[in-house]
């Protein structure tokens, strides 16, 4: 597969690994946070940590949009789905996220019609095919996905569809990163920056991290070599005493982002004054809702949404995992009470959740890949 296989090459990985080891100062430990859940997934799926020296650690960040959805919002979505003639559509990941009273899967077993779709456009198809039903799309994701949702609403409006709306749970990445930076519990040396979010927002929004917080950030692609190269670039910056935003994923990410995508988001959506993030609490200006002009497509205005705040179960430590303070296996209920089959929290359910990634891919004693030579000192 072009643009994929070349970035999974094991020989180049060994070469990068040697270079990273060479850049590591003896006695010093490095902690880099990968923000995106997609990066966490790649790291575990390909066994990437096997290529990093012991002194370089990756910390998992909160960039998993399913993981940060509070239980109360899941309940709200189910409440909408339970209303007469509603078909709820959603990405597959949301199906098993536990709310206060079970997941979408459980709700279906009890009679709701919640369907998996691959694209918001598929939800439109369902709406066209079922004019007597009210079709709701559960819109989740960071800025990567918000433009697609917005385009879909614009299309629905252009077609004059009257039975389609979205339940908007889009969140924005910068406030999440800022919450990490402001957290007293964590010392980080740099960030493996968002990849696909950056295709929309560009690289400039991260500049405050280098100036106000004095940490480097490298926007990274999602193939394992992309991530390894980004670690190499971060190590290089530290070695050279630089603090810059760099774009490793330049084949896909334009420095200025995608103006059309930003424009459609702004057309259809606006920032909420605040929004609750699971584990991170209430963050201001961190999520999107549908603008007044598009009220006809806003499920929160059309339907009665309970809006009850549900506290996470006492045992759940998703918050600390999302902030990178705890590794998945350090959570007290990891693997025992909280498993993919019986999840307590979202980190264990989403394909991008750190706990799911560690449980499904990483849960064994690993041997680092031995590079046969001494590191090269340049």
């Amino acid at each position, binding site marked *: 597969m072009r643009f994929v296989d070349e970035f999974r090459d094991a020989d180049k990985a060994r070469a990068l690994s040697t270079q990273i080891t060479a850049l590591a100062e003896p006695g010093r430990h490095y902690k880099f946070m990968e923000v995106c859940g997609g990066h966490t997934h790649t790291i575990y799926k390909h*066994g990437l940590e096997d290529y990093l020296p012991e002194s370089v650690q990756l910390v998992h960040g909160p960039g998993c949009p399913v993981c940060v959805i509070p239980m109360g919002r899941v309940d709200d979505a189910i409440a909408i789905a339970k209303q007469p003639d509603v078909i709820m559509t959603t990405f597959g990941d949301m199906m098993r996220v536990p709310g206060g009273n079970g997941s979408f899967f459980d709700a279906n*077993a009890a009679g709701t019609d919640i369907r998996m779709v691959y694209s918001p456009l598929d939800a439109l198809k369902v709406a066209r095919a079922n004019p007597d039903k009210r079709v709701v799309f559960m819109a989740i994701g960071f800025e990567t996905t918000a433009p697609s949702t917005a385009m879909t609403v614009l299309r629905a409006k252009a077609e004059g569809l009257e039975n389609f709306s979205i339940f908007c749970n889009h969140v924005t990445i910068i406030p999440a990163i800022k919450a990490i930076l402001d957290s007293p519990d964590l010392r980080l040396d740099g960030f493996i920056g968002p990849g696909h979010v950056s295709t929309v927002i560009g690289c400039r929004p991260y500049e405050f991290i280098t100036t106000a917080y004095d940490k480097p950030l490298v926007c990274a692609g999602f193939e394992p070599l992309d991530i390894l190269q980004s670690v190499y670039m971060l190590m290089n910056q530290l070695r050279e005493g630089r603090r810059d935003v760099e774009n490793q994923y330049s084949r896909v990410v334009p420095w200025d982002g995608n103006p059309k995508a930003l424009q459609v988001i702004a057309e259809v959506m606006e920032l909420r004054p605040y929004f609750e993030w699971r584990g991170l609490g209430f963050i201001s200006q961190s999520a999107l809702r549908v603008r007044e002009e598009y009220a006809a497509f806003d499920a929160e205005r059309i339907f009665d949404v309970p809006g009850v705040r549900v506290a996470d179960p006492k045992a759940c430590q998703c918050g600390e995992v999302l902030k990178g303070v705890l590794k998945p296996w350090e959570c007290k209920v990891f693997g025992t009470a909280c498993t993919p089959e019986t999840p307590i929290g979202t980190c264990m359910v989403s394909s991008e959740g750190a706990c799911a990634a560690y449980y499904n891919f990483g*849960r064994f004693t690993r041997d680092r890949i031995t590079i046969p030579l001494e590191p090269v000192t340049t």
Partner: protein
Amino acid sequence: MTTGQMDHQTEDLHQPPQSDRERQVLDRIEKARKRKPKVREELVTLAHGAGGKASRTLIEAVFVDAFRNPTLEQLEDGASLEVGGARLALTTDSFVVSPLFFPGGNIGDLAVNGTVNDLAMCGAKPLYLSSGFVIEEGFPVANLQRIVASMAAAATTAGVQIVTGDTKVVQRGKGDGCFINTSGVGVLDRPLTLSAGSVQPGDVVIVSGPIGEHGITVLLARGDLDIDADLESDTAPLHELTAGLLDAVGDRVRCLRDATRGGVATICNEVASASGVAIHLDEAAVPVEPVVTGACELLGIDPLYVACEGRMVAVVEAAAADDALVALRRHPLGGRAALIGRVQADPPGIVLLKTAFGGTRIVDLLVGDPLPRIC
């Protein structure tokens, strides 16, 4: 050049080092996984039908618990029985695939081949099938005839006869077209017992051909995804392929499994768990057609978990590996047979994958199924 920034989190001097703590957690998790399964849900969900963890829990906690007997508890693809001195294999399978017709076949082909294959995986020669139909009111008779014609053709190819059956019709809306159950009887005419519990460290894992074709074909045929690809179901009877393999290396074959719901990954987990061994798979060695890879990448699905309906996994003694591959490759259905993994002692019950990238990760059972109603 900045001076080193040390962690402000100091290690608790009384705690064991991090890697030991992690190991303790992993041990605790393994103990938890061995606990007797309990069904916590009050309602059956789609996950219970997926062939993964939830299915297993339901089977063990509800069915095995109620029907308890030594034959059932082995949970092989078919039951090996002694009746009046003859050794027979008995199996059953139900088919709920949607859509009913797809490139490469239809529910009828699956219904015959699926049961023939379960018998073949026991090492039996498939002989007789039953077929039970549950048909929805309003289902076109012409479609029924197409399905039945396929079953007749598949039965002839497989050398079996459909000797008894049953037909029920349910009201419109209660049956989604047509469901089929087939049961099959075969004769265990070889002096061997194949079992997932007999695998030893040193054995090798072989797959008979490229994976994932059936599952992806059916998923795309549903039409919801609007993905179009030149791909067909791999549904096929494996009785000749297995006969050829058993003729060549029969006494050195540990077990055979057809890779249906849950794919190769699920089979490897079942074997690792039944025998208390580890299976180390090599991603680069697993044959997958590019179009299956492409569709899986688009959808975020791992081909290792995608159902096949004409592929099997064979675990054989290492010394028999070459002969096994030669025997499989001699047959048109086994032309791309490949050695994809090795059995080791540690860590027991776990399947590890060396990725094409060179790192290692676990391949666990899924809870649900990325692809519902594939077979």
